[in-house]
């Protein structure tokens, strides 16, 4: 039964890495700026999920803090980029 769980964990990691590759292709190919920002958003969420899979497989506690930090900074970056696309500046006077 543990081999089954290992296969499931490997499958999920493979799915997340494939999703990261697709998001990277969209980030390089994207026709408009908002497509690239959306691809960056997908990329950091999938990177966070890959870290979480590492944490599940190695049963370590350090990876969750790293995943929380990636979620926090990725959110701040995406909000800043979207605000820049919307207004032309990030912090308005």
């Amino acid at each position, binding site marked *: *039964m*543990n081999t*089954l*769980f*290992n*296969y*499931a*964990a490997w*499958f*999920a*990691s*493979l*799915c*997340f890495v*494939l*999703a*990261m590759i*697709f*998001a990277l*292709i*969209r980030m390089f190919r994207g026709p*408009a*700026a*908002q*497509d690239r*920002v*959306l*691809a960056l*958003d*997908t990329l950091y*969420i*999938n990177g*966070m*999920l890959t870290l*979480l*899979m590492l*944490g*599940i497989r190695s*049963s370590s506690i350090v990876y*969750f803090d790293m*995943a*929380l930090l990636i*979620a*926090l900074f990725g*959110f701040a970056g*995406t*909000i800043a980029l*979207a*605000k820049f*696309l*919307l207004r032309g500046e990030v912090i308005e006077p």
Partner: protein
Amino acid sequence: MTMNALPLWATLPAGMLLIAGGLLTLIGSIGLLRFPTFFQRIHAVSMGSTLGTGCVLIASMLVSSALLQRPVVHQILITMFIVMTAPVTAMLLMRAAVYRSRVRMDDEHDAAAEQKVES
């Protein structure tokens, strides 16, 4: 603390949740790559990644609780954070896209009107 200590009641739902989360996220990213317009892309991605993150974090909570023999709930922090922030980013990006497409359409309209006046 090895994987051999994992009991059956945690292994089966955690494995199924991991497979479901991986498939959902992969489908969302395939939609990001394949759909033709921006609004279809953001629709596929935001739903897929939010559901996939929820599935993986619940599986992670199950596995750590079963390994440590006590309830471990600190993954719920990431879940709450993603659930709160994903709609905010999606809405800001959609507003930016609507604004930019409207500005571009206005510019084209003005250019066409100017050409008509000149000719």
